């Protein structure tokens, strides 16, 4: 119903502003309805400003900036409707190291009671995991096998083989 949608939307709007502000102090993030008088048919507008930069059309942001905006939106929505676990498949592929750290810090701090499963090639992300699984097709036969990896105690060449490292 319209009432339920508007009230949920308003909560998401608040959470998005707070999430984006926490990730990028000095910046601002805002959700809006393209047709406020007709909420159930309206589109959703995303307007953000990164610190030190002007307001831009979504098209003008960089690849990494778009991923960051989408992640802030995802985090805001997860706060509105908590799911018991979340699976993210290489969502940080476009991020530089500083923003990867920022994203992981936020995730650890804000969602410390929720399970996350992160698929990744990024070594910064791997190091944060409580538990790490390596999936390989040893012997190249097209059959996936799994090994549990204790990143901290593994010898470098074992880690390399697992993560497809040179």
């Amino acid at each position, binding site marked *: *119903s319209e009432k339920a*949608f508007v009230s*949920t939307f308003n909560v998401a709007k608040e959470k998005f502003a707070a999430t984006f502000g926490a990730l990028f102090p000095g910046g601002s993030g805002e959700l809006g309805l*393209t047709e406020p008088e007709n909420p159930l048919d*309206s*589109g*959703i507008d*995303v307007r953000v400003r990164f610190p030190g930069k002007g307001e831009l059309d*979504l*098209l003008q942001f960089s690849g990494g900036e778009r*991923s960051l*905006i*989408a992640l802030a*939106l*995802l985090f805001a*929505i*997860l706060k*509105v*409707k*908590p*799911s*018991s*676990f*979340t*699976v*993210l*498949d*290489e*969502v940080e592929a476009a991020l530089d190291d500083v923003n990867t750290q920022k994203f992981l810090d936020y995730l650890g701090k804000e969602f*410390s009671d*929720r*399970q*996350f*499963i*992160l*698929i*990744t*090639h990024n070594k910064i*992300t*791997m190091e*944060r*995991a*409580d*538990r*790490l*699984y*390596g*999936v*390989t*097709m040893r012997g190249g*036969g*097209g*059959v*996936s*096998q*799994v090994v549990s*990896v204790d990143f901290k105690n593994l010898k470098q060449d074992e880690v390399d083989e*697992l*993560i*497809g490292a040179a």
Partner: protein
Amino acid sequence: EVLKEIALEGFKSFRDKTVFKFDGLLTGVVGPNGSGKSNVVDAIKWILGDPSPRSIRAQTGLEAIYRPANGNGDSAGFASVAIKIDNTETEIEGEPTEWEIERRYYKSGESVYTLNGKTARLKDIRAIMARKGFGLGSLSVVGQGEIDGFLSLVPGDRRLVFEDLA
């Protein structure tokens, strides 16, 4: 933690029964290109009841079943994904402390769901999952390459994300 483990057997590249335990808050999955990481994500979407083969990158339901490379050996007779959900904090009298939900798809095209070993209807399984905070709608799975689409330039698409919430 609510999601305790997931087991894949005969599902895509997982020919042999393979179990992932999720006993930490942040679980990482790593491995070379093409080794089977995103197939695990597909397995989670599939067990949550996602009806369309395309969402698990398959043309038909049959493509979910393990098929050997170049015909060495047989393809599996069925694809199976099972999850174990912790239910110790339930409010309902007489419920078990753990739910095990399995989805099987046979080469014949038959699809069977079981709940703690007994055949069950998808409707009943969906109700349990929703109560435990598992559900497709709650954005609990962001597949590879999907983070950029999240911000999809069409505001109308974005509204669908919010509709799930209301």
